[in-house]
């Protein structure tokens, strides 16, 4: 990769692996994040998301492969990389016995900000995250959403070029979640590259690109809209339909699954999402399901969702490897 290309990308990961003793936590992962893009990292717990983020922050050294952040090799230019990045970990990691203002002053001065500049950047971060009213409050007394904003503010004052957020919205209410994402979009608009790990599909759909990690490997990567059109998601000879059930979908779930032409069933509120053989007509599906539920069922064709993509890929992976992890077994 040329230097010019390295500069165009905020983050470049090339064949990065990391072993912890005999355990491989990350297996030859590669991805490229253009500047100013929000990149989503998805995958079950323990799939390697945090390990990747920690490698990119310089907290862990990769066992093999290379990673560049803002054009700099993380393994070789760690200190310079740390000046240019911000990191918001999964768990709140500021000082709970210090106030909001004290925390911000501390982190600003660690980044070498002083006097007027410190004040200006601090006030900018406070304004951006709207945390102003809580200036004098101890961090321990903030709610989850405000803690996350404080952590974000603390990681922004030195104007990082690349921002890493490890499940920033876990355990936060929907309104705070929405506001945090609006903030992330504002930052991306200013040219900051963002790598965000998440479990929420709606958040994944907002990302410019997403990667799906499973058991230390990257199964797929790309634009969320393109991923839903992947051939293996809706294999040749099958199609996806939504069955809207008037009497509730839960009651007919098991009957739907036992129909010979149904490959997969997922429940969505009062509707079922079915993967069915392409040659079976909507009328027949409606009839079979109405028989089972004794109520009216409406069928309409749908596209695969991002969740379908990940569920499908995980199943394929399990079949391929011929092993069913205990956790996956339980959710089937």
């Amino acid at each position, binding site marked *: 990769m040329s230097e010019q290309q390295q500069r165009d990308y905020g983050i470049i990961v090339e064949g990065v692996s990391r072993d912890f003793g005999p355990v491989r936590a990350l297996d030859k992962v590669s991805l490229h994040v253009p500047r100013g893009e929000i990149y989503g990292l998805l995958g079950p717990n323990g799939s390697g998301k945090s390990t990747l983020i920690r490698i990119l922050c310089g*907290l862990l*050294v990769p066992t093999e492969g290379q990673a560049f952040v803002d054009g700099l090799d993380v393994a070789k230019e760690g200190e310079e990389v740390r000046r240019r990045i911000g990191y918001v*970990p999964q768990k709140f*990691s*500021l*000082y*709970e*016995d210090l106030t909001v203002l004290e925390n911000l002053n501390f982190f600003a001065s*660690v980044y070498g900000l002083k006097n007027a500049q410190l004040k200006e950047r601090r006030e900018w971060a406070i304004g951006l995250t709207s945390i102003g009213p809580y200036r004098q409050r101890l961090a321990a007394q903030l709610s989850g959403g405000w803690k996350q904003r404080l952590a974000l503010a603390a990681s922004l004052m030195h104007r990082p070029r690349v921002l890493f957020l490890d499940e920033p919205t876990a355990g936060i209410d929907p309104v705070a979640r929405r506001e945090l994402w609006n903030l992330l979009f504002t930052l991306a608009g200013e040219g900051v590259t963002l790598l965000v790990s998440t479990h929420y599909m709606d958040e994944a759909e907002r990302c410019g690109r997403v990667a799906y990690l499973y058991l230390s490997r990257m199964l797929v990567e790309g634009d969320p809209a393109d991923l839903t059109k992947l051939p293996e998601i809706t294999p040749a000879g099958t199609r996806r339909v939504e069955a809207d059930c008037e009497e509730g979908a839960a009651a007919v779930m098991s009957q739907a699954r036992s129909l010979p032409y149904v490959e997969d069933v997922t429940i969505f509120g009062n509707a079922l999402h079915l993967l069915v053989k392409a040659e079976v007509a909507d009328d027949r599906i409606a009839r079979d399901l109405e028989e089972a539920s004794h109520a009216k069922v409406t069928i309409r064709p749908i596209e695969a969702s991002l969740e379908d993509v990940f569920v499908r890929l995980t199943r394929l992976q399990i079949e391929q490897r011929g092993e069913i992890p205990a956790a996956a077994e339980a959710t089937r």
Partner: protein
Amino acid sequence: MRGFLPVLKKEAMQMIRDRGTLQFALFVPAIQLVLFGVIDTNVKHVRTVVFDQSRTQESRQLLNDFVNTSYFDIVGYAPSDAALKEAIVAGHASTGVEIPPDYARRRLNGEPADVLVLIDGSDSTISSAALAAANGVAFARSATELAERAGAKDLPIRTHPLLLFNPDSRSANLLIPGLVAVLLTFSGTLLAAFAIVRERERGTLEQLMVTPASPVAVVLGKLLPYLALAFMQLLFVLFLMTVVFRVPIHGSLPLLLGLSAIYLFALLSMGLLVSSHARTQMEAIQLSQMLLLPSIMLSGYIFPLSSLPAALRVVSQVLPATHFIAIARGVIIRGASFGDLWQSVAALLVIAAVLVAGSTRAFHKTIT
């Protein structure tokens, strides 16, 4: 050294805000000082039971000699051999003196007279003091009598023992300088370990490590306030020692403080070493105790170094507390100068250097 001053300022702020740490640092030493200040380990007035079968002027004179040493207090008279033993077994007395019926007759005839002294061997401090005192009584009386028979006015040799530095042989003078070392071991090691493990436990250390702050700056910035706290504690303990317990410092105070600084560096490094191997504050406490216990038992604070078997004596030489106790006792009690103490100082310096190097390496490993 990027980040040193901000970390230092933040740590000082947290330390002052955390009442537990300050109380631990000042209250605990005060209590221990009071306890050790009033304890007297000198053996005097050992409870003594007597079985006097002679009941003569001579036997009473001998018993008076025992009492006059002030080592023995006669607390009772036993009617028989068995009763005498029983008094010791039951713990009513620690020594028993049995004078045979022919004691006075043999003395008057100039024949050797026997006196049985039973000593409770279950407490070595008491038994050795009683043994020495009892022998002393017999020797003194025998010598005086032999001299009289020989017509000599004086005994051929007279000793003039002079107890230097601690004329009243107060145990406080001996214990408190050692206590200073032990107290600093507690607070220096444990508080330093806590300061770092707490950040690790809460994840804030990781947050610091993604900033451009250098790990060395973080460690120094975090430990320096605790060095200051330990120093304050030292001054506080020395103040209590000299003013309240009237143990004077015979040597130079600046010398003592300067050497204490080396000791504190060694302790904080030990704390850092503990923090590198402990994930939680609970683990830090357990690990510290593994280091603190030998510092109390094997440093010469409680047992004299000469009483340790060879293997343990090696361990004691590796402990910084051993050398600091030697220094503290030297300066405080004997008024020793730097030249007198250079061996202990050199040992302490070597140990401190090894600990500082080892602990920073261990810390580096844990963060990468």
